[in-house]
């Protein structure tokens, strides 16, 4: 059995009495250490899938099995999550924001070394006492990534984390993500609507369509990836065709 198995996952929303299927039977098997990127049009259910895995929403049907154990409200997945916006606590310093998962446990001082090594990894050395309002969008998103990694999660969920950033910051953070992934050996599950970004990072790209996995495209390339290579362009075409088969 695979490391993480998602079986017939369903989610219905009630919008003014109308039942809308956000997820209509998602089946997925993920191995440890994969970098999965989910792409799809708006409303295809990408974010809903991630929110269910993060425990922020409950599925209306289906199962999530992690290492052979059924996950539920009391047995949630060991995840860290980065959202589209940094969602930093404005009253906490960078240090405290990174160690946010540990605040209720107290003894933050003992984790200072961990926090400093995360800051170094994210290129934020010297910013531990800065407040979120003093950071640029890219820096704030790095802090959010540091927060997600600080609790050493087995799965890192990324919900369009670079969507609100400018082109250059985006590229820089894509490189950082690829480096963190190759160095850290964690399993990443990311949602994006940018196919180029998906191919720069993923070991496998999943196309979500109408609440179902439409296709699964392995990306057998190392990092960094040459965007202009024929292989890269071929994969882009393949994924774009899978997302939109209208012929345009």
């Amino acid at each position, binding site marked *: 059995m695979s490391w993480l198995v998602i079986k017939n996952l369903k989610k219905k929303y009630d919008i003014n009495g109308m039942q809308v299927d956000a997820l209509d039977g998602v089946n997925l098997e993920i191995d440890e250490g994969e970098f999965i990127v989910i792409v799809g049009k708006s409303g295809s259910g990408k974010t809903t899938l991630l929110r269910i895995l*993060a*425990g*922020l929403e409950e599925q209306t049907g289906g199962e999530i099995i992690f290492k052979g154990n059924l996950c539920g409200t009391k047995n*949630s997945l060991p*995840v*860290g*999550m980065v*959202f589209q*916006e940094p*969602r930093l*606590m*404005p*009253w*906490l*310093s960078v240090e*405290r924001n990174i160690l*946010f*998962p540990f*605040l*209720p446990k107290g003894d933050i001082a003992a984790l200072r070394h961990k926090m400093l090594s995360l800051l170094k990894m994210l290129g934020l050395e010297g910013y531990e006492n800065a*407040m979120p309002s003093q950071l640029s969008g890219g820096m704030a998103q790095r802090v959010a990534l540091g*927060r997600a990694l600080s*609790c050493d999660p087995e799965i890192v969920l990324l919900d369009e984390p670079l969507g609100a950033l400018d082109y250059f910051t985006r590229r820089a953070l894509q490189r950082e993500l690829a480096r963190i992934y190759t160095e850290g050996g964690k399993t990443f599950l990311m949602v994006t609507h940018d196919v180029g970004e998906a191919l720069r990072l993923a070991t496998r790209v999943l196309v979500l369509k109408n609440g179902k996995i439409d296709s699964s495209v392995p990306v057998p390339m190392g990092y960094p990836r040459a965007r202009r290579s024929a292989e890269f362009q071929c994969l882009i075409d393949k994924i774009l065709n899978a997302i939109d088969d209208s012929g345009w």
Partner: protein
Amino acid sequence: MRYSNGKVWQNGFLVPLLFFFLWWFGSVSGWWNQFLLPSPNQVFNSFVALIETGELQKHVWASLSRIIRGFGLSSALALSIALLCAWFPAMLLQLEPTLGFLRHIPPMSTIPMLILWFGIGETPKIILIILATFFPVFMNTLQGIRDCDPRLTEVAKVFGYTRWEQFRFVILPSAIPSVLTGLRLGLGYSWRSLVAAELVAASSGLGYMILDAEQLSRSDVVVTGILVIGFMGALLDYGFLWAVRRYMRRGTEI
């Protein structure tokens, strides 16, 4: 030159200086009867005399001690009820219509009943301060809690925070600015309501000092009392703001 130094002009002292100049100039030019508005000189002399006899300190302390007790009690009560209402929405549902009714009653209108029930001692004055201070603190605290960005509590949920931990580490800290605004407003309200209570029935305090001077036709003492009240209120407000800014500089972590 002073303008470029940026002291007197930029700190907002221009208006009070102009006011005092007009007051002084009008007095020496005989624009009005000195009984209706005594000159700055007369007021200053009566201020010095009141300090020398220890009268002013006695009344200031009497008013201040009422504020400390009333505002402290009221804030503790309002904060506790607001936190309970935030934690137990059913409690707010039960209390909301009653509080909505009580909120619109001016505390001053309760003075006759308070005197009837509690006499003219300290109790009605403290109750009056509680009534005047409760709602700004309660409403602002509750609003601050309600305004907490749900996206921030989602972050806490992802990291496995319990409901209490979400409340303690996300909702409460995010409500702090609103709570402080409520406390600051409440402090101003408590000062104003106290002086009003002392004007009606008291044997000490700045309100009493003004009423007593009025009966003795000492308009210089009345004006001294008014100026001291304004000064004390502003001082308390500045003191509160100073403490808040000092606290904020520490990062507002609670």
